[in-house]
């Protein structure tokens, strides 16, 4: 655009381009309300974080101090002591927890991962898929004691007694929704272009899922599995009605007694923490430390596997 010439007689004024800029505004000052507010809020957030961490660290501290005293090879490998007996340990409960979580995993991991695959591949408007997804979400917040009651009604009463299998089934109910939902999520995070590439190559839907999508989603799926295992290992309520407790070893006389009442760390802690004998209370602390360490390690493995990079 051509400039319209100034009217004659009017002198064009040169404006200071920095007029109105007050450099004092650059100085840091607590007198400005928003600066003050910002400072207070930052302080508050720090304080609350510290407060939230106090219970966590005090529990860990107590466990290490009190449980650590009694933690020994004997405690890890012996059967529980009788009422006034000295020594003993929780070896049978450790094995019981590992076996029951293991069986629960055998039930819930294949079921959960396959369900997750189905959900991730289902059309958005598929009714069955939405129903399953909804059920899984509800089950995530399912009170764990109800899983125990369910397994009691459906397994213990049917088979005629408390057993490791009943405990495993109760735990698998708690593991299932976590595995289903994290598997679905992990599979959905695989970019569509990767799926297109496989299908464009002439892969069948099954080949696409197993050769491309599942390997790409594996770290995410494993994280979900680890979280589920960590949760199941620490559960007490579902085992009270199902596996109960036992002072004896799961495997005796060369056979594994999966249909007998079975000890677990969580129930051992519950039982021993409430008795008036020092030996048992000490063992409960040591068992608690072992249980927390197991859960911690499982969680850390899950974290380490969690996907950092996608395509």
């Amino acid at each position, binding site marked *: 655009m051509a400039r319209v010439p100034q009217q004659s007689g009017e002198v064009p004024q040169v404006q200071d381009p920095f007029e109105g800029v007050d450099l004092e505004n650059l100085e840091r000052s607590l007198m400005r309300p928003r600066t003050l507010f910002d400072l207070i809020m930052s302080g508050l957030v720090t304080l609350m974080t510290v407060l939230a961490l106090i219970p966590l660290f005090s529990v860990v501290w107590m466990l290490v101090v009190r449980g650590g005293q009694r933690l020994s090879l004997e405690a890890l490998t012996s059967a529980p002591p009788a009422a006034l007996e000295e020594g003993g340990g929780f070896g049978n409960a450790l094995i019981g927890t590992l076996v029951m979580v293991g069986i629960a995993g055998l039930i819930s991991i294949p079921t959960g991962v396959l369900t997750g695959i189905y959900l991730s591949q289902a059309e958005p408007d598929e009714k069955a898929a939405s129903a399953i997804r909804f059920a899984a979400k509800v089950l995530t917040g399912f009170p764990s004691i109800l899983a125990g009651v369910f397994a009691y009604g459906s397994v213990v009463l049917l088979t005629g007694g408390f057993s490791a299998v009943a405990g495993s089934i109760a735990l698998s109910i708690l593991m299932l929704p976590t595995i289903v939902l994290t598997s679905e999520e992990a599979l959905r995070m695989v970019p569509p272009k990767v799926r297109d590439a496989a299908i464009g*190559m002439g892969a069948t839907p099954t080949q696409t899922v197993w050769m491309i999508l599942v390997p790409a989603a594996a770290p995410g799926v494993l994280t979900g599995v680890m979280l589920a295992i960590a949760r199941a290992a620490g559960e007490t309520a579902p085992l009270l009605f199902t596996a109960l407790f036992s002072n004896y070893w799961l495997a005796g006389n060369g056979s594994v007694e999966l249909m007998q009442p079975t000890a677990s760390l969580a129930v051992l802690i519950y039982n021993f923490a409430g008795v008036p004998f020092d030996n048992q209370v000490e063992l409960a602390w040591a068992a608690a430390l072992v249980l927390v360490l197991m859960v911690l390690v499982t969680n850390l493995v899950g974290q380490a596997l969690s996907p950092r990079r996608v395509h």
Partner: protein
Amino acid sequence: MLAEQTPSLTPGRDNIVIDCDINQLFYGTFKAVRDTQIPIVKNSITAFIGPSGCGKSTVLRCLNRMNDLVRGFRFDGHVRYRGRDIYDPNVDPVSVRRYIGMVFQQPNPFGMSIFNNVAFGLRLNNYKGNKAEKVESALRRAALWDEVKDKLNKSGLSLSGGQQQRLCIARAIATEPEVLLMDEPCSALDPVATRRIEELMVELKQQYTIAIVTHNLQQAARVADKTGFLYVDTTQGGRTGYLVEFGDTKQLFDSPKEKHTQQYISGEFG
């Protein structure tokens, strides 16, 4: 009527590998493409050009049934591959894609080694022979061998964008498809990598038949033997794409028969 029309489009009928005739194509209730007939001649490069949303990618994806993955996809017409309608209910879309391969807009190698990327199609088909030989040959034909021969075990994702796209081409040709569909294969690449892929396409047409969608008119002019111009028809309320003109690339660019084509090529809109 079709019987009369087809021969006029097909000089030397035997050379037509894919005979595409789309009457109407819907996504749900949305009519995406209408009245598009494109014969694809063996050992040639056929380009589809046109403004965004004119349905050129949709037409390309019809040719190996990739549109089957889109919800609500409906198709009225036929796509004959060597005379066989690939939309016949007895035809398995999975097998169609093994004969008619595809290279996508975004380079999409799998998160596995370069070797396994190329060998993927061989694994799909349970190929029992010498995989290493096939992989090397595919990488050579895709002009990537010299750059990756020392790192075949590295992830395909570690390559640059242009190399990734050539890896995808190698992956697509490793199973010896007859036709290669390329959906804007250079749009995510810089000019040097683009030129590389274009040279490659011209080499590959000796052995394969190529159909390419491109936004880049110069690219179509440089590489394509035949070009189809698609345009969007907004007169019936929707945005329906249709084929305006199809012919030899030189004729279409130098002396287009249709006014729309002439306007688009001269940059008056688009």
